[in-house]
């Protein structure tokens, strides 16, 4: 039986755009030399020039200068460099206190935990029921020994967009560095480092129809950061390793291809699925803020049923989505994000995340609503919960 596949998990990975592949191809077959070889042969110079140009394109997209942007292998590495690099640079000079939130994605959260084991003190700020960090709590948590605050731009699961502008200002008042993980907002929600008091920004290509394995980190000029991965002197001697020029070319092209019209289109899909699911299926809850959320993200809990059962049924109908259920997670634990916004295990188990991308259409959105209605109804029939 042929089932048409419909992919609504664009925050996990996106389909590569053909134009991105075209932009990458020359760097596999013709210009495959690396920039490190610029003084050995002319291909090296070509590579250096290409890398400079791509770096400039990425930096410009954030309002930054070229020397403030390094390429990495993705958002995991970027956030690791940001947290651990600053921690190493400032622990002796200034202090060992770091502030982050309870609902950060794993690269930030687990870097913070790793630093805690090394003797750093970490404050994990709680968030409210929509997922917002409380600015007063942040003010209270900041001390003269606080070296870094890492608060995400938007949440990977529930889509809530933080007030990073004010967060940045508060950090600045107390001379703490500010890092934001912009993996899911990059190009979709404007971020200009000339307007925003931010010192480090994590970005990635995999969320915008670019290749996997390439990301970047904006590092404001003068930010103290210690290199901790040993190797060569690439990326301004912060991130060693062979330059991934094909990846960088794909990343730059992917950034160029995102338009505000497209983002608006994704937002229309988001609003439609939220409105329809909440009105057409009883006992549903929206996770995250209704308006201040990623344009491409909807996250709904279907009460009394378990998420992995929903995703498996949806999969059989051709739809790919994800869930915050413990059954689905690698650690058999409920989503720390849904628990963080004050949800209970039941709310996490029944949560389904829909994330939209370039290749989705409104008719796909309308189709899944009907299918979901039937699936949830059937699963509720066999569930012991939610009955009188």
């Amino acid at each position, binding site marked *: 039986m042929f*089932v048409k596949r419909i992919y609504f998990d664009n925050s996990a990975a996106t389909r590569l755009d053909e134009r991105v592949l075209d932009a990458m191809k020359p760097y596999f077959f013709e210009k495959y030399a690396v920039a490190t070889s610029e003084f050995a042969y002319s291909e090296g110079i070509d590579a250096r020039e290409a890398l400079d140009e791509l770096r400039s394109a990425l930096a410009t997209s954030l309002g930054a200068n070229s020397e403030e942007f390094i390429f990495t292998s993705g958002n995991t590495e970027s956030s690791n460099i940001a947290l651990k690099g600053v921690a190493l640079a400032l622990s002796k000079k200034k202090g060992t206190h770091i502030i982050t939130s309870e609902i950060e994605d794993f690269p930030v959260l687990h870097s913070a*935990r790793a630093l805690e084991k090394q003797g750093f003190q970490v404050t994990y700020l709680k968030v409210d029921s929509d997922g917002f960090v409380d600015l007063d709590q942040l003010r209270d948590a900041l001390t003269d020994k606080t070296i870094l605050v890492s608060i995400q731009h938007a949440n990977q699961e529930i889509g809530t967009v933080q007030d990073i502008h004010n967060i940045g200002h508060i950090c600045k008042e107390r001379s703490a560095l500010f890092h934001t993980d912009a993996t899911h907002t990059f190009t979709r929600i404007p971020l200009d480092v000339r307007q925003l008091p931010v010192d480090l920004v994590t970005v990635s290509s995999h969320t915008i129809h670019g290749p996997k394995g390439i990301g970047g980190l904006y590092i404001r000029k003068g930010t103290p950061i210690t290199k901790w991965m040993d190797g060569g002197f690439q990326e301004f001697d912060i991130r060693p390793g062979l330059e991934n020029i094909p990846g960088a070319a794909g990343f730059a092209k992917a950034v160029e291809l995102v338009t505000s019209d497209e983002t608006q289109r994704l937002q229309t899909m988001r609003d439609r699925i939220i409105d329809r699911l909440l009105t057409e299926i009883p006992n549903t809850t929206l996770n995250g803020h209704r308006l201040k959320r990623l344009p491409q993200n909807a996250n709904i809990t279907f009460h*009394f*049923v*378990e998420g*992995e*059962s929903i995703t*498996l*049924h949806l*999969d*059989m109908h051709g739809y790919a989505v994800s869930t915050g*259920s*413990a*059954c*689905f997670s*690698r*650690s*058999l*634990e*409920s989503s720390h994000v849904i628990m963080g916004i004050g949800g*209970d*295990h*039941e709310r996490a*188990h029944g949560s389904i995340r829909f994330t939209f991308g370039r290749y989705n259409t409104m008719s796909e959105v309308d189709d899944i609503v009907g299918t979901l209605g039937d699936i949830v109804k059937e699963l509720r*029939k*066999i*569930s*012991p*919960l939610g009955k009188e």
Partner: protein
Amino acid sequence: MKFPYSDIVLEHFRHPRNVGQIKDADGKATEGSPSCGDMVSVYIKVDPDQKTISDIKFESYGCASNIATGSIITELAKGKTLDEAKKISWKTASEALGGLPKIKAHCSVLAVEGLRSAIQNYEERHGLVREKKPTTEEEIHKRLRKVMNPLSGLDIERTNLVKDMQLKDGIVHVVIDLPPEHQFSNSIKEEIKEKIEPLWDIKEVFVEFIA
């Protein structure tokens, strides 16, 4: 299309057998809770003369392996004597389903527990069990054998994760041979507490991770 489950599991997941409640059930039990991820209720009707399960129904709040195991155990238990039905193990159910992923063992063992508890419930209601006995270390170990190690799909006793266990004045201390930050530490801790804390004379359960 590819699925992480066998065809039999998928068949039972899509078309679970014997779903629902029995209003005038002779025995019933609910195992698990939303906080452990899964929940199963089992209802039985018992033929009083033959001591056989004449009817059985189940309800599931859980993932595919939980639903499929619930479905298969109702099929396996129907018509069996109570003693025969008590012997249906997770292994029996898993084999009948053509195997289950290791990491899913803990979701599916609940249905088996549910069936045993429903039978116990029947026996208690019909005066077939003696009065409450104090919990022994042996009983605790028996319960620990029902806590699954998601790394192997076998229980934590058999896979030597239980380094130490002590029972004193209703307080249980369990030491697990895993680092505290291990991927499954929290999940295993919750499951141990869930299996031991309901015992009538147990006041508190402490789980420690050392590796």
